[in-house]
């Protein structure tokens, strides 16, 4: 499977550097290594979800508890989380650090991913969610730290789009 182990490791190490102790996740191909790393790490609480929206509540609970968290999801999982984002995270000013795999974008071969790719950025903009891209291994750690800093200072969700250039090797 050509999911980048190297990039996944760099992302996971950056999360650790940022003191992220709880990760919620719903598996998707590009996230397999990251989820396994979280599962193997005794310091990380991994919460495997049935649906991504649960992660909004779980991250809110962690925030109340003073525990830094992040959410791993596919962009379709972001779509499935929108009510939670609006009527919990935005309504109650909850910081969320969302890692969203950008499926259905340039280079996508799976037809079923393509529609979600079309609307991901438009929806992030419509929701007023600041977002940036993880597209090169050199800027991963800095950008994750910046995203976390903004989420915490603004008390709102911030998204990082995990791109094919970073996550896929072939």
């Amino acid at each position, binding site marked *: 499977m050509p999911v980048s182990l190297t990039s996944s490791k760099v992302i996971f190490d950056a999360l650790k550097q940022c003191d992220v102790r*709880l990760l919620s996740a719903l598996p998707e191909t590009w996230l397999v290594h990251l989820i396994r790393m979280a599962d193997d790490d005794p310091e990380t609480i991994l919460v*495997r979800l*049935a649906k991504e*929206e649960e992660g*909004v*509540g*779980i991250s809110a*609970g962690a925030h*109340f*508890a003073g525990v830094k968290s992040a959410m791993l999801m596919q962009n379709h999982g972001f779509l499935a989380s929108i009510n939670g984002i609006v009527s919990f995270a935005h309504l109650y000013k909850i910081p969320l650090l969302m890692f969203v795999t950008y499926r259905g974008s340039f280079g996508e071969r799976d037809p079923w991913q393509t529609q979600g790719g079309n609307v991901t950025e438009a929806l992030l903009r419509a929701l007023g969610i600041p977002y940036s891209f993880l597209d090169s291994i050199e800027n991963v750690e800095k950008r994750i730290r910046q995203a976390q800093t903004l989420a915490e200072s603004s008390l709102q969700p911030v998204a990082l789009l995990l791109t094919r250039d970073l996550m896929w090797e072939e």
Partner: protein
Amino acid sequence: MLRLDCLRAVYPELEGCLVVTIMGATAAELHSLGHRANFFYLQHAMGLASSTGLGLALSLPDQKIVVFDGDGSLLMNLGSLSTMARYRPKNLVHVVFDNESLLSVGGFPTATSTGTDLEGIARAAGIPKVLTVRTVEDFKTAMKNAFHATQLTTIVAKVEATGPAGYVTDLSLVENRFQFRRHIQSLKRS
């Protein structure tokens, strides 16, 4: 059985817990008994009260967490039962007030009114301790046992579909959220 009577019966025991409620009547009734800094009312995002309780329970394993859920909210996020059951935090008590109704939006019947069995669903999802209660006395006993239990408990409390005249309280949502977090941080320092 009235939800308000259930809440009143366990109100003193809630003092040492962190409490998360769903929106509408449940939030308004608990608030009417006297707001405390350890109460968080999730006034929207239906279905996510149990997820919030799970996030708290996993982050604060030494703190008792109580979620006051409802049939309408839980039916919107049944997957939460399987996620809670997967991690089954011992410090989480999950109460579902089942009035078979979406009371706050006009009393439309939910699927529990036509036979959907939340106790059965919770048990089949893998929640280790599940029970249904129909009297205030049984509710009080079930809560007492759950507080001292060493396993995740879901209590389905069958209540009447009645509630307060209004649902808006004088506590702003954001004030509640900051107060709740500050309370938890003060517990961690002490």
